[in-house]
């Protein structure tokens, strides 16, 4: 059915200003600048994995070890910690950031300005990608300078696993942040997920020394697969599980959950 009406003002903003991509970039850029002022985030993101990897590499030594798939423990942990920093970012940092935004009413302000749930989620994903890349780069840099980490045997494979891990954990973080009501609950939820995943998913003892129950749990953790894939592509070890589709599926489910949650609970 049609009716004659009158139009008095331009109906659409210019594409450059109203496009979802533009808004996503603007929001991610702004949030990145603000996070750069949060010293606790930077210290937690880079400091935690660096200190842990330095301690573990120092404890287990630098010679080849059969419990570590025949490679040196420092290489084993350094490569694995690329995955760990992504998990730390995704599960422990992003949810708190996002839930705090909701708790304070920041998301509400964004929504009132016409930023859709999709744009907010995409900006968080982009933000996570940048932060994850920075944190992983720091680990690699320190690994190369301090422990002489070798170049990856399969650089493209390593890149693929890195991207899969990034997608998986950033999406998981956004989903957890969308579900948590407050920053405090997000922190509790994040720790609840991160600590067992860290210990059994590649950040703790090598798989060879785990009990069978621990190995079974480890097999379903996406971090185990990301870390396992990185080690396989970088060092050629195949002890850890490394099924590429698993972190990708987790990422897809997490994004769907985040968008759904954002639509259902906009403020």
């Amino acid at each position, binding site marked *: 059915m049609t009716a004659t009406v009158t139009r008095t003002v331009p109906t659409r*903003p210019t594409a450059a200003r109203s496009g979802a991509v533009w808004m996503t970039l603007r929001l991610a850029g*702004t949030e990145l600048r603000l996070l750069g002022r949060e010293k606790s985030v930077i210290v937690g993101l880079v400091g935690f994995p660096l200190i842990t990897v330095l301690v573990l590499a120092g404890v287990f030594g630098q010679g080849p070890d059969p419990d570590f798939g025949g490679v040196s423990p420092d290489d084993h942990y350094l490569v694995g910690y690329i995955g760990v920093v992504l998990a730390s970012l995704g599960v422990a940092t992003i949810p708190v950031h996002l839930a705090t935004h909701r708790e304070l009413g920041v998301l509400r*302000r964004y929504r009132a*300005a016409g930023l*859709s749930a999709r744009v907010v989620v995409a900006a968080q994903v982009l933000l996570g990608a940048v932060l994850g890349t920075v944190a992983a780069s720091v680990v690699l840099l320190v690994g190369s300078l301090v422990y002489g980490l070798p170049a990856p045997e399969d650089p493209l494979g390593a890149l693929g696993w890195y991207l899969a891990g990034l997608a998986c954990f950033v999406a998981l973080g956004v989903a957890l942040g969308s579900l948590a009501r407050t920053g405090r609950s997000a922190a509790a939820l994040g720790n609840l997920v991160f600590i067992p995943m860290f210990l059994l998913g590649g950040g703790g003892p090598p798989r060879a020394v785990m009990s069978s129950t621990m190995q079974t749990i480890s097999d379903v953790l996406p971090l185990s697969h990301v870390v396992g894939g990185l080690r396989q592509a970088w060092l050629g070890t195949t002890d850890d599980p490394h099924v590429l589709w698993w972190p990708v599926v987790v990422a897809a489910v997490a994004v769907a959950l985040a968008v759904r949650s954002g639509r259902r609970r906009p*403020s």
Partner: protein
Amino acid sequence: MCPAPVRAHDAAMATKTITDRDDAPDTTAGPVVSVRGLEKRYGGTTVLDGVSFAVEEGELFGLLGTNGAGKTTTVEILQGLRRSDGGRVRVLGLDPATAGDRLRRRIGAQLQDAALPERMRVGEALRFFASLHPAPRPLDELAGEWQLEKLWRRPFSALSGGERQRLFVALALVGRPRLVFLDELTQNLDPVGRRRTWDVVRRVRDGGTTVVLVTHDVEEAERLCDRIVVLDRGRVVAEGTPTSIVRALGGTATVTFTDGDLDVRSLRGLPGVDRVDRHGAVVEVTGTGPVLAHVGAHLVAVDRPADDLAVRLPSLEDRFVALTQEVPA
């Protein structure tokens, strides 16, 4: 400064015909906001019960009610920030429930419970939200209007309540919206800031922007609004101009003057007088209609003109209190 007001009939002089679809935006074929039979329940509690009203282009429209009357829920539904449980809502020709994001990019909103990231500076906030609009207001002009120039580099966490409020209003106006929602606008402002804000709101309306003002402050509604809807427990209990709502009260006027010697019995027979009381030298005459004129004329006629003759008419506040204290049937 602000552009000249754009009224519906002026705008219609230079328009073109288009085909209307359900989601066709920015049309002037009807009210800017149209609400019919709006319902909202939280659990078993009904917070909006058949609310209906319309806001016309260029109006400064007030949604007045006590805390918990359903004002904020109503405007959140109008902005698509909350779903209704029934009724029909159109804002700028759009259904907020299905076109919320598009709608929100075309309106301005100052929300009651909202914040910015704590480390975001005032200037950054203005720049960021301006960048989301195709033709934003010049930021220096906006900052000057809302006294934000000196706060330009101050983070949000360091702003006082009043400063935050001014920033939010500036953000609501940065995109030159055709319609702006202001929710409890002068909350946290001191009396000077409050009056300054009222002046700017009038200027916003005079610039052609339709304003929906949500308030529990009767004085604010009375001073600012062209038209008011009074909400009470989720229902519209009065609608009209502040004057018409007061008139509908049918309330009495009270005339007072000082005369210790006047025989007040002579006043009881005057037209419209219901009651005469004396409190010492002060005489209080209560009645309806032009009772002041009759009392004044009588005092002149008996050669006892009072130099402190005063009248107190029923106010919007009286009407508001009466309306919101009535027990619904």
